[in-house]
């Protein structure tokens, strides 16, 4: 006897992610999920972002790593609420970890929530965290063929941030090919080029965030 089940293997994660999304909607929280290889600059980008955001913007960060509280310490310097999620070996964040981490935060005190995922281009792409958009980072010290090697995450991300642009003259990274590869996998993907070290392109990145936030929450920011 064959019984049809038709259930997603990650259905429990999906259920929790939908709950999170509804809570974000109820409390006007705009949530972004940052994903990249280790060392592409997720934490640096968030450091620059927090510095640049006005103190009256209510920003909060959840940052995931397998071990250490280092990223939370770096990000806490900007004065916004930051919480480290240490996964103890797991290579991605899941919706349950986010639910738990948010349990003692008042969502009315948050306008923008950044989730910095564990450095990995594969597993984080399968776990919905209730975010409004996934963002993938690619740095010029990596290969321009990353989008072709890891199409899943480039397909699911609305924006690709190309980081470490200040190093472009010193590395064999083909920027035009990187853009083309990202678009080959995901024709509608937005692209922003930044350098966190010399603080370039950050206005484009912030403008993208505020535009996207308005689409979701509908309130003008700044």
């Amino acid at each position, binding site marked *: 006897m064959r019984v049809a089940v*038709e259930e997603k293997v990650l259905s429990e994660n999906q259920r929790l992610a939908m709950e999170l999304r509804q809570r974000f909607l109820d409390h006007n929280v705009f949530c972004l999920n940052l994903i990249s290889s280790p060392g592409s600059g997720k934490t640096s980008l968030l450091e620059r972002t927090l510095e640049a955001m006005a103190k009256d913007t209510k920003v909060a960060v959840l940052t995931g790593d397998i071990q250490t509280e280092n990223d939370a310490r770096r990000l806490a310097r900007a004065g916004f609420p930051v919480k480290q999620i240490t996964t103890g070996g797991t290579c991605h964040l899941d919706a349950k970890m986010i639910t738990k981490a948010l349990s003692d935060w008042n969502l009315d005190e948050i306008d923008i929530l950044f989730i910095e995922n564990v450095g990995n281009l594969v597993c984080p792409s399968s776990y919905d965290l209730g975010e409004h958009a996934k963002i993938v980072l690619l740095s010029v010290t990596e290969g321009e063929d990353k989008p072709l090697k890891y199409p899943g995450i480039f397909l699911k991300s609305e924006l690709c941030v190309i980081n470490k642009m200040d190093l472009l003259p010193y590395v064999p990274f083909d920027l035009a090919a990187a853009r083309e590869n990202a678009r080959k996998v995901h024709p509608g993907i937005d692209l922003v080029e930044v350098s966190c070290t010399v603080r370039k392109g950050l206005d484009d990145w912030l403008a993208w965030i505020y535009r996207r936030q308005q689409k979701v929450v509908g309130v003008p920011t700044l």
Partner: protein
Amino acid sequence: MDRVKQESEKRGGAHVTKVGVRVGELSGVDPDALSFGFEMLVKDTPFEGLALEIDFRKRVQRCATCGRAFETDMLFGACPDCGSSDTACIAGDELDIAFIELEDTACV
């Protein structure tokens, strides 16, 4: 496995013989690795010998211009009919339990 146990218990502990899963190539799951892991998972348990059937699905894009849906590889090209590159992914990231087969004890 929770789902397999549930279905078995619902039918008075009927013996489960096969589980069918659907795996899209964009899901990040490798069918060989899944089969290997599954074998290890059921080994030395009451489910030892349980068969796993994997239905591997290619990525499917739909063309926004002419509406044609077409199968493609990980790096899709333009629509094979009208040549438009304005296509959206409509399938290929599945990771679903499709069905479970049990021995037909209740209906004898």
